[in-house]
C-alpha cells in the first residue's frame, strides 16, 4: 500500500504526513509538485503548510502546479485524496471540493487542540470512526474560515458531505462549524485540522488519561488503508 505525499514550495507538514502514513502501516511516497508523475501510489495526501507563501490566495498557486493535473485526474477516477489545511485550500482552488477558506473571523492565527465530531464515517478517510464520534486533534491556521453559498451549504449538509464539525467552540468563523468536507463520492476529503499531528503517544494532544497521549488522528490514515484493502 503506497500513499503519496506531495511536497510544494512552502509545504510544512509533508514529513509529518509521511510519518503518520508509516505509523498507520502504509508506505509513504514523496512526490514533487513539479513532476507529472504519481509514482503508482494508491492514495494521496496534500499536506499542510504555506505553499508559495499564501500568495494570491492560500493554495491557489499550488493548485496550478504540474502534478495537480495528475492529482485532479486521479481524484476524479476515485483515488482517495486527503487535503490537510493548506491541502484543503488547494482542493477548493482546484475545484475538487466546493466552498472556500477565508481569513479567520477574529483575524488571528490560531493553534490549539480542537474538539471535532465525525459527522460522516463513510468516506474513504473516516471509515474507521463511528458517526457522531468526538475526537481531538490539533488545529493551526490563519485562513480556516469555511464559506460557501447558501445553496452549496444546503447541498453539502443534505448529502452528508460535512465530514467533521468543530465542537466546543468555532475557532475561525467557519459556517455551520464545518471543519472538513468531502466530494460526492467520498474519496476526496479536505480537513482544516491536522490529523498527522495526533498519531503517536507522547506527541499528540492531551487527554484525560495522560499528557500528549492523543492519537485520534491516526484513524484517518488507517481508515484509508482498510478501505483500499477491501477494494483491492
Amino acid at each position, binding site marked *: 500500500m503506497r500513499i503519496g505525499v506531495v511536497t510544494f514550495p512552502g509545504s510544512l507538514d509533508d514529513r509529518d504526513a509521511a510519518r503518520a502514513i508509516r505509523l498507520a502501516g502504509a508506505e509513504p511516497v514523496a512526490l514533487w509538485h513539479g513532476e507529472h508523475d504519481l509514482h503508482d501510489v494508491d492514495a494521496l495526501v496534500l499536506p499542510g503548510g504555506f505553499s508559495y507563501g499564501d500568495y*494570491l*490566495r492560500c493554495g*491557489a498557486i499550488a493548485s*496550478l502546479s504540474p502534478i495537480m493535473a495528475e492529482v485532479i485526474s486521479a481524484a476524479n477516477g476515485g483515488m482517495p485524496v486527503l487535503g490537510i489545511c493548506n491541502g484543503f485550500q488547494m482542493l*477548493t*482552488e482546484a475545484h475538487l471540493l*466546493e*466552498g*472556500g477558506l*477565508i*481569513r*479567520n*473571523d*477574529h*483575524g488571528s492565527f490560531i493553534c490549539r487542540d480542537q474538539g471535532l465530531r465525525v459527522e460522516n464515517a463513510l468516506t474513504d478517510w473516516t471509515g474507521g470512526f463511528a458517526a457522531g464520534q468526538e475526537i481531538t486533534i490539533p488545529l493551526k491556521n490563519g485562513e480556516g*474560515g469555511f*464559506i*460557501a*453559498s447558501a445553496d452549496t451549504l444546503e447541498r453539502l449538509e443534505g448529502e452528508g458531505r460535512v465530514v467533521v464539525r468543530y465542537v466546543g467552540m468555532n475557532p475561525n*468563523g467557519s459556517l455551520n462549524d464545518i471543519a472538513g468536507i468531502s466530494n460526492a463520492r467520498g474519496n476526496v476529503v479536505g480537513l482544516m485540522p491536522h490529523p498527522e499531528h495526533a498519531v503517536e503517544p507522547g506527541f499528540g494532544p492531551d487527554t484525560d488519561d495522560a499528557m500528549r497521549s492523543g492519537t485520534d488522528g491516526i484513524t484517518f490514515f488507517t481508515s484509508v488503508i482498510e478501505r483500499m484493502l477491501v477494494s483491492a
Partner: protein
Amino acid sequence: MPTIVVEVMPKAELLDPQGKAVAGALGRLGKTRFTSVRLGKRFEITVDGHVDDAVLAEVQELADTVLSNSVIEDVVGIHVLEAPAGETH
C-alpha cells in the same frame, strides 16, 4: 508596454477581517468619519504588444479563473492603464 489593471475584492456579503482590522486602527487614530474599510487586490499586468479585444478577453478569463476565486471574491474592474505622458508606443 501597455499595462492592464485587474481589481479584485472580497465578496460584499463576506466578512473581510483585514478590512475590519484596518477600520479598527483608523478608529483608534480618532478617524471616526471613516466607518468601514474593505481591502482587495490590484494586479498590474504588463503586455508584450498591443491591447486588443482578444487580449482583454484573455485577461478577463484569467481574472475570473486565476486572479480571483469566484467563491470568495469578485472581479470589480479591468482597465488599460493610460500611458504616462511622453511615453510612446
